[in-house]
């Protein structure tokens, strides 16, 4: 009987709440790389403010920009900065895009712990993935064929790698493609001659991160921009949101302690370091 009452109450609440929350809705669209951050932020925010309804879709950076320009979303997640053309289209429609850098995306090159190589340059990595360098001997390692491990082309990590390392070159067709950061790590930790790339959050003791241009990837080097394979991740809003509004709270969440922890927990690097 009690149970029924609870279920009934819950049902009524569920029916009523969207109506009540109708005023406080945040619609988010855009990059698949930034999407997980927005989703985690939304989950966290909605737990504290159940009256605010947040929807997050991931349709790509370009589509996010389009949605913002058309007024179809409040926040556009983007893994790149807005193009001039997109800015002009926005301004023509009376929308002023404002960028908020919510996190930094850093990619670590990883090898098997037994591999004597401890660092490479970005152009060496590019040569390896383009198939010009096929043996560790050519970059100062042992005489072993390099097993290059890449990500499926639909992943955000692949996109970042393609933009920051490959410089418009194709990943060679001989490279192995796997479906997730975890799978890359699993392949590298079991294959002595392998090289792979993962988000910094996926580096653990079972694999060895390489120095890139002589800089080891960690939170400090990535956030400061000294580590070369890193890029900022943006949320774009129309103008700066009114102070104190849910939207304002949302796009400044990355500055809070919880926000930073969320960013770190899903494998990205926070922009600021309040805690240590």
């Amino acid at each position: 009987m009690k149970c029924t009452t609870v279920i009934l109450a819950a049902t009524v609440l569920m029916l009523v709440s969207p109506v009540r929350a109708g005023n406080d809705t945040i619609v988010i669209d855009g990059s698949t790389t930034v999407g997980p951050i927005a989703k985690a932020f939304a989950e966290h925010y909605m737990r504290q403010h159940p009256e605010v309804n947040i929807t997050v879709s991931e349709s790509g950076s370009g589509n996010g920009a389009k949605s913002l320009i058309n007024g179809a979303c409040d926040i556009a997640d983007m893994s790149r900065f807005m193009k001039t053309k997109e800015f002009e289209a926005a301004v023509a429609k009376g929308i002023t895009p404002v960028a908020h850098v919510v996190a930094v995306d850093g990619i670590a090159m990883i090898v098997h712990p037994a591999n004597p190589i401890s660092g490479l340059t970005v152009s060496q990595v590019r040569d390896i993935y383009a198939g010009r360098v096929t043996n560790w001997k050519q970059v100062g390692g042992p005489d072993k064929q390099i097993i290059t491990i890449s990500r499926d082309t639909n992943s955000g990590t692949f996109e970042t790698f393609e933009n920051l390392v490959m410089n418009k070159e194709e990943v060679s067709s001989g490279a192995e493609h796997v479906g997730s950061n975890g799978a890359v790590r699993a392949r590298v930790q079991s294959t002595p001659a392998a090289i792979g790339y993962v988000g910094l959050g996926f580096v653990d003791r079972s694999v060895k991160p390489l120095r890139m241009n002589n800089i080891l990837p960690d939170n400090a080097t990535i956030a400061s921009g000294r580590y070369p394979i890193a890029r900022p991740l943006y949320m774009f809003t129309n103008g700066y949101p009114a102070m104190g509004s849910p939207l304002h709270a949302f796009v400044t969440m990355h500055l809070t302690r919880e926000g930073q922890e969320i960013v770190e927990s899903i494998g990205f690097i926070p922009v600021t370091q309040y805690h240590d």
Partner: protein
Amino acid sequence: MPRRNLLISRAAGRRKRLMAFAGHAVLLGLTSSSAVTVLFIFYFIIRDALPFFQLRGVTEFFTSTAWYPSAENASFGALSIFVGTGLVTLGAIFVAVPVGVSAAICLSDILPFRVRQLVKPVIEVLAAIPSVAFGFFALVVLAPQLQERGGLILSVAVWLIGVPILGLTVLIAANSITSRLSGWSHRAGRWIIPLVLGGLTFAALSHLSGRVGAIEIVSGANALNVCVILGIMALPTVVSVSEDALQSVGRELREGAYALGATRAETLLRVVLPAGRSGICAAIILGIMRAIGETMVVWMASGNAAQIPHPWFNLLEPVRTLTATIAGEMGEADHVTGSARYHVLFGMALCLLTISYFFNLISEVIVRRSDKGKT
């Protein structure tokens, strides 16, 4: 009995007819819903596949090996992916068919009934293991093992495959040679020829296994790994369908053969197998379809490199299959609905669907023909 009780009033009759009609309609709807589902799948896949061929044409897709869907000047050559699918399927068949068919023969004609009751369910349990578990095994256990002890595993495989096949061949060859001889040479040949042939084969096998044992497998996520796992996954299908086929040959034929003085081996090879041939073919085709359609294992363990191995039958190189490409590139892809990159996946799905439709058709034809032969 009053007359009116026997007659159904006009209204009641209409009601009855209506009910009967409604019942038929419901049953027809239920049975046709599965057929309609298939038609809908075909329709929607074709609808989303056609724009790709309109955008990019047909030649590039089927003849080029350049698969760069995310590049600025994207190219969608899927030839290497088709080759990968074919290679993996072929390899799986080489694993599943010899093992599966001999297991079926063993189950239906050789093992005692009680053992069979025990073994068959165990083989069928293989079908119940989720494919992601197979994939995980392939990626985490088999791949590192292949890398660490590749040569050893390969040479053991050479012996396992070589000994039964070559052993049988040697016995048959020796038998047919000695039967041509006569007198003292026949008596001597009965011992010498099998020994000589066996020795030669043994030497050849040791040489081969030595050569193979020296191979170092650089990456365990390759076609061979996937072939073995897919073969194991196709086993339950092959075993149970061909075992059913052999069972359905019936006692009469077997007893007839025994009555004519045939030995057990002769009965099996000359009577039971030919009679169950069509069922075994159907089993093999079902096994092929299982291997072509499998996604998770190939996605996790085949390496997914869109290349044609050099030479083409080199199973130790990574390959990419249609199913894995669809699974890997679909999902939360950072590309626009309506782009060639999106529609190409439907093009692949259409090819897969057509391939399995044709295989299904072939197996149907084979089964039909054998049914006609029986009656």
